[in-house]
């Protein structure tokens, strides 16, 4: 029996029992689901299953050790995996109160070329401020700050190529002083 915690919009605490080869019983709260794996070739990121006799399929990608993306029925869900209190470091998962989180990382939501960096190290930023512009697929994606704070690190240069989820900059929130 293994326990898993996935937090996305809601939190799901799973208890999984393996009953036979490729057959599982998943418990969430008091509900039980029987799961049969239909296809998961070479343990790839594509999985198709029967959950209580209803077919579902998805593609799972591990973004890093603590985050996974599940692509199901044309929707993408992002889950934090494991102990939530230690992984609130990315802009997707940052605590709303700002208090528990001393800093957070700005990750690139889109791969592309940095066309403009609008801030400098040490500069105070407010929620909604423009941080940088990434050029991708002939469009410009504006990266905005999700938090109040100041820029403590900039990890990319102008005109450099960035990949998905690459660290762009770090914003510290604890030493923010109002100007």
């Amino acid at each position, binding site marked *: 029996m293994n326990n898993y915690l996935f937090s*996305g919009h809601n939190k799901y*605490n799973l208890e999984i029992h393996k009953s036979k080869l490729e057959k599982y019983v998943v418990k969430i709260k008091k509900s039980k689901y029987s799961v049969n794996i239909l296809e998961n070739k070479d*343990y790839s990121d594509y999985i198709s299953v029967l959950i209580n006799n209803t077919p579902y399929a998805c593609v799972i990608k591990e973004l890093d*050790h603590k985050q996974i993306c*599940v692509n*199901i*029925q044309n929707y993408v869900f992002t889950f934090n995996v494991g102990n939530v209190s230690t992984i609130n470091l990315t802009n997707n998962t940052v605590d709303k109160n700002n208090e528990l989180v001393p800093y957070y990382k700005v990750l690139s939501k889109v791969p592309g070329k940095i066309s403009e960096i609008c801030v400098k190290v040490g500069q105070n930023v407010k929620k909604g401020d423009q941080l940088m512009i990434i050029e991708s697929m002939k469009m410009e994606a504006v990266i905005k700050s999700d938090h109040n704070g100041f820029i403590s690190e900039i990890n990319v240069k102008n005109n450099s190529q960035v990949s*998905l989820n690459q660290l762009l900059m770090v914003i510290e929130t604890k030493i923010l002083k109002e100007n």
Partner: protein
Amino acid sequence: MIESLLIANRGEIALRIIKACNELNIKTISIYSEADLHSDYLKHADEIYYVGKSQPSESYLNIDKIIDIANKTSVEAIHPGYGFLSENSAFAEKCVKNDIIFVGPDSTILELCGNKLKTRSLLEKSGISVIPSYDKLITSENDLVNIAEKIGYPVLLKSVYGGGGKGIRLIKNKKEISDVFHFAEKESIISFDKIGFYVEKFLENVRHIEFQIMSDKFNNFIHLGERECSIQRRFQKLIEFTPSIIMNKILRDKIGNIAVKAAKTLNYVNLGTVEFLVDMNKNFYFIEVNPRLQVEHPITEMVTGIDLIKQQLNIASGYEINLQQSDISLNGAAVECRINAEDPFNEFIPQAGQIVKYDLPINPWVRIDSYLSENFEIPLFYDSLIAKVITWGHNFEDAVIKMRNALNQFLIYGIQTTIPFHKYVLSDENFINGNINTNFIENHKIIDKMKMNFKDNIPNLEKIAAILSGIYYENKPSDKLKSNKISNWRKYANNYGADS
């Protein structure tokens, strides 16, 4: 008929042109950039040639290189598709100089249509009502302020070199001018290496309706009815359908004749699209002629039964159009949804990444124009269109029902696409009732409603996603991460209990 054709394009439209050529026994030559090495369209061409690095300027916009390949392979003609070089008069001219047929209007017409201000004043003189704009090229912020004040806000700043909705910006008041101009200037330099804008009055709550026209060297001009393209976001068309709900036979004949008159005034030859904005009183204002194939051409093909690419090739080969206006009948209705690699829940940010797997809707009356393939890495360098889903029905409602079913069964794994957006719009009452205009998405808060609708679905679908995630880890053997993590999860569960 020509016997060999080079396609100076990529993706779904390259594939679409190849399919038409196959039916006409025309040998196809496709080109590819570094990023397209594994693109599916290449498998269908008779011969393929490397054109250059991934940047469009090095590859699909590289006139010299493309002409060079055409000469080496001694093709008779070049089809430019849409975008890239399709409206480039210098390219069309270079083709002719090298004894290659350019499938499209000749360079003088391309140049005229490219100069939108000139086209407008020409057509205005012939008695066609055009959109209010100011006949002056803008190259500085100062020019812009002066002209915007004269026309009155809100205005649209458009690039003279733009097209397909690219390079258009809305200016609501004087305060916005400086920022908008700065941004537009930068974008124009990135995209076109030069700047040049014009300004037109921004009409709110209008419909965008366009007419497909067709003409040959023998002075035959016909139109193939309209396409309603009002469902747009930031001037990018997302859903198109035909017929338009405001159209009846008398109005279609009337506007169709205006479109034909515009084509005649411009001495137009080959296929083209005449675009109009339509106000609530069904007044049509001419905006521009798109002298090329449109992305949304399939809906016209579905209701007319006419293969537009074959017609283009036929006309370019120097033949007469084998149809008359009275031969054109519009049968039923067709809808097209553009499936883009963009995240509709997150400001439509482009999604690059791998398409791990996809399931196509194999349904009757469904057509898919796409170059999807499994494990295909979507290149970042080109636009984000990955598939077009087109359905036919005996009326609009029927076509929409078929589209809804098709999208329910069209599953793309690996990246977020705009499918959820389309599914929401197709269920929206205002859309179904035809109560739409170019501000539809903003006016009816479609994006917010889509997100709300998604939230209602979360409890079920997210739980399924969580179960699948658990099974994924459970089924993943000898994973170091897993063994480390399990102790953490156990620790967490032990410490905090299993509340959720």
